[in-house]
């Protein structure tokens, strides 16, 4: 039984989350192939071939796949689908974008954001913003899945898979890339960081988010935000942690000036240790925090930075 895993990358680097999706794939079956679709993505191919447990890396290197447009990538995956029982991708924006398209073209259901594999056709996934956990059995012949990376450990990278170059190119021609406006940051990627410090509405403005910088630097942490902070324009939306933003599960999550709405908790409550700093002792965040500190963040943050 072969499994096709879509490799998440930016044409230069294989995303660490793909290693976690490979682990999920290996819980389903043993013959795992990685598909690298992109343009000038040779370095990604080299990294993909080293992922332990991957037997084959399929490479579609063409300008049509440079921005991994859903219309083109889904057509590519569809061509390959006949050889696979299971097709899966990481539940990041690229995977969420094209995988349902693949499922519909194959006329099968998709199971989104799985957090566990019970068997080759039965999967566990959160619903209602993580307030309920559903066990779902796929009744289709082919399984099409997206995987919540934070729920699986990363596969090792001491393998040596066979590399196969694909020649067929599909350009649907109904969409084109105009531009990217990416947030530049020297800090670790929010989804992969082992420590995350997040600010909420309590930060009051974007300028005050600088109070988190020094702490993040000392801890090697990524900086996140609640929806309130994003909506208020304090920080860009790709920093949002929650049901509709990023799902994180770091070793340590520090929530500063965040009340702890259901939608925010959905994105971080699987963190190993949660710290809450809030001046409102009634804030719901304290109900999930391992360590709570009732304090004004404008006093607490400089002190924390100084003492780390």
């Amino acid at each position: 039984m072969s499994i096709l895993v879509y490799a998440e990358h930016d044409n230069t680097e294989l995303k660490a989350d793909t290693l976690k999706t490979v682990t999920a794939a290996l819980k389903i079956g043993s013959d795992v192939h990685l598909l690298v679709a992109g343009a000038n993505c040779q370095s990604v191919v080299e990294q993909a071939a080293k992922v332990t447990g991957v037997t084959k890396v399929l490479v579609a290197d063409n300008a049509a796949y440079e921005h991994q447009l859903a219309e083109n990538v889904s057509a590519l995956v569809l061509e390959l689908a006949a050889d696979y029982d299971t097709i899966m991708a990481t539940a990041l924006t690229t995977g969420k974008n094209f995988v349902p398209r693949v499922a519909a073209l194959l006329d099968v259901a998709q199971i989104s954001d799985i957090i566990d594999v019970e068997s080759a056709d039965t999967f566990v996934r959160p619903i209602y913003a993580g307030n309920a956990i559903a066990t779902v059995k796929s009744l289709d012949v082919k399984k099409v899945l997206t995987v919540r990376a934070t729920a699986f450990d990363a596969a090792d990278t001491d393998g040596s898979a066979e590399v196969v170059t694909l020649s067929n190119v599909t350009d649907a021609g109904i969409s084109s890339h105009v531009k990217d406006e990416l947030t530049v940051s020297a800090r670790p990627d929010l989804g992969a960081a082992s420590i995350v410090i997040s600010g909420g509405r309590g930060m009051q403005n974007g300028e005050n988010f600088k109070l988190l910088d020094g702490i993040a630097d000392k801890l090697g942490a990524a900086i996140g935000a609640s929806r309130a902070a994003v909506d208020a324009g304090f920080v860009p939306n790709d920093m949002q942690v929650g049901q509709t933003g990023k799902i994180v599960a770091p070793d340590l999550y520090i929530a500063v000036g965040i009340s702890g709405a259901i939608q925010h908790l959905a994105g971080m409550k699987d963190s190993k240790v949660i710290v809450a700093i809030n001046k409102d002792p009634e804030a719901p965040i304290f109900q999930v925090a391992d360590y709570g500190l009732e304090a004004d963040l404008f006093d607490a943050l400089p002190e924390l930075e100084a003492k780390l």
Partner: protein
Amino acid sequence: MKVLVPIKRVIDYNVKVRVKADNSDVDLTNTKMAINPFCEIAVEEAVRLKEAGTVTEIIVVSVGDKTCQEQLRTALALGADRAIQIETDESLDALNIAKLLQKVVEEEQPQLVILGKQSIDSDNNQTGQMLAALTGMSQGTFASEVVVDGDKVNVTREVDGGLQTLALTLPAVVTTDLRLNEPRYASLPNIMKAKRKPLDVKPAADFGINLTARTSLLKVTPPAERQAGIMVGSIDELIEKLKTEAKVIS
């Protein structure tokens, strides 16, 4: 041009769900229901396009039992022109919903279909993409800006590293992210007017689609409860605990 906006009735986003004692599903009896927040944003975007003169007619559609008429009326009060209810008592998989919507697209021939990026109950994030696939349309998911430009639509998408702008050939499917707009409130006169707007009820069975379930929900359980934590008195104590007790920093 014509816009189709599929919407969904879901549990109100502020309500904490309860899992049924027999673990068959969540308990929705006597729960406050509302229009899915992302769908509300989709309706608002369609209304704004109409106000800007780009759009001539807005059709809202929902798949569900009679109760979803309430949400269709809400959408009409917000500015949609007419509504279609595809009536079924079943809870359908996203693919079957997309197939029903495909038929509506074939009949109505909208240039633009705007959906929410996900419903806050099933959290699937699939229907828009599936509908785009079935109708052969281009797709602009997780949109934070939509600009119609002749026979194309420029969609700025919220992607992992920031923003990405795509140019899509119409007809296209767009799914909304939260930052696309701030939905308006329906005024009382508009709520009254909405009662007279047309709402067609079409039984799902009449669409000639095999709606057999593709997935089976085996069980639903509450998530693991987190152990209650402790309150610390000072930053010093906090750092000490993190170093020696939790061992997450060194």
